């Protein structure tokens, strides 16, 4: 990912007031991590599992934080249980940021990723989670704002899935 794209993602997150992010690093969007760390206004928590990342983010949201959770496209599989229980069932909004490795537009796709990537969106749909796939930075701030508004309104996690230019 071009550094300027990472800057735009971070800008968009800060613009909607995200002040708490849980994450497992991956390869497509990881350049946002040093930017967030350098910025210093977003509390960052490294989790050992995406399932855990969702629960920590949910707890912070209940405590008044504006939260996001960053993961790769394996994350929805690993975290399906907590997305459904603390996310949907309890009703806690969490902005999901998913690096879409294994997608059609993943510029570094391979046999390692494609099976995971191709079934990721059906998995989100099976969980009843709203999502939008983003392939370039056009209107990125608006996409982030829209996703957070949907997440708040649904009282549930909602996902922005980054592919194309973001997955180089």
């Amino acid at each position, binding site marked *: 990912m071009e550094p300027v794209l990472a800057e735009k993602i971070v800008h968009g997150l800060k613009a909607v007031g995200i002040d*708490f992010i849980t994450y497992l690093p991956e390869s497509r969007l990881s350049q946002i991590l040093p930017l967030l760390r350098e910025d210093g206004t977003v509390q960052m928590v490294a989790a050992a599992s995406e399932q855990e990342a969702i629960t920590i983010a949910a707890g912070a949201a209940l405590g008044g934080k504006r939260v996001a959770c960053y993961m790769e496209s394996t994350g929805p599989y690993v975290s399906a249980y907590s997305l459904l*229980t603390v996310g949907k069932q309890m009703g806690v909004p969490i902005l999901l940021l998913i690096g879409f490795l294994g997608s059609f537009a993943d510029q570094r796709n391979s046999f390692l990723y494609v099976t995971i990537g191709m079934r990721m969106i059906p998995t989100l749909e099976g969980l009843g989670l709203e999502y939008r796939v983003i392939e370039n930075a056009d209107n990125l701030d608006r996409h982030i704002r829209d996703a957070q508004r949907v997440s708040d309104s649904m009282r549930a996690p909602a996902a922005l899935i980054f592919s194309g230019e973001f997955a180089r």
Partner: protein
Amino acid sequence: MIRRDCLELVAPLMTDQLVLSSQSGQRIEWFHLSQHEGNLLVGMMGCATGVGMGLALALPHRRVIVLESDGSVLLSLFNLPTLGNLNLTNLTVFVFDNEVYSGSTMSEPTATAGNTDIAAIARASGIENAVTVDDIEGFKEHGLPGVTGEGLHYVVCKVEESLIHREIPRPNVDLAEYKYRFVRYIERTEGITIPFVGLG
């Protein structure tokens, strides 16, 4: 020692703590003993400690207490290294370890009935003061400071299996009602607005 013995000692000490229970028998016993507005039911096993960590990070001046079970902790062992590295000073986790899946009708044994020691795993994960207690005096000594004191406490309470939770009335409160009561309590006591609950 049974779980209820411990919870009966904790309930009178409630002031402004935030208490989360996982989906185990203790949630019925606790919510029967305590109608504290800072109680929150986390509806399934394996999620309460994670939610507790998030709350403790968001509200570092509030004491957060998590009521866990051995089955629930075994479902989410990844919490322990994370907790062991966060340096939290306002979180207490009580693990009521009865060595069985008590919710199963046959009380099938958990790994802690065999060779597994949750407190030892916690210590090896960086929670240096994680401790196991197996009688009520031990709970008073090592457990109760986690209710009113400071620091990170991880207390594994070895308890006999008890089926009291099957005999007392279940709470007539659903997950959404718990959540809204809980966040309104936080709003009122913290003087903050939880961003997502009032948007219309």
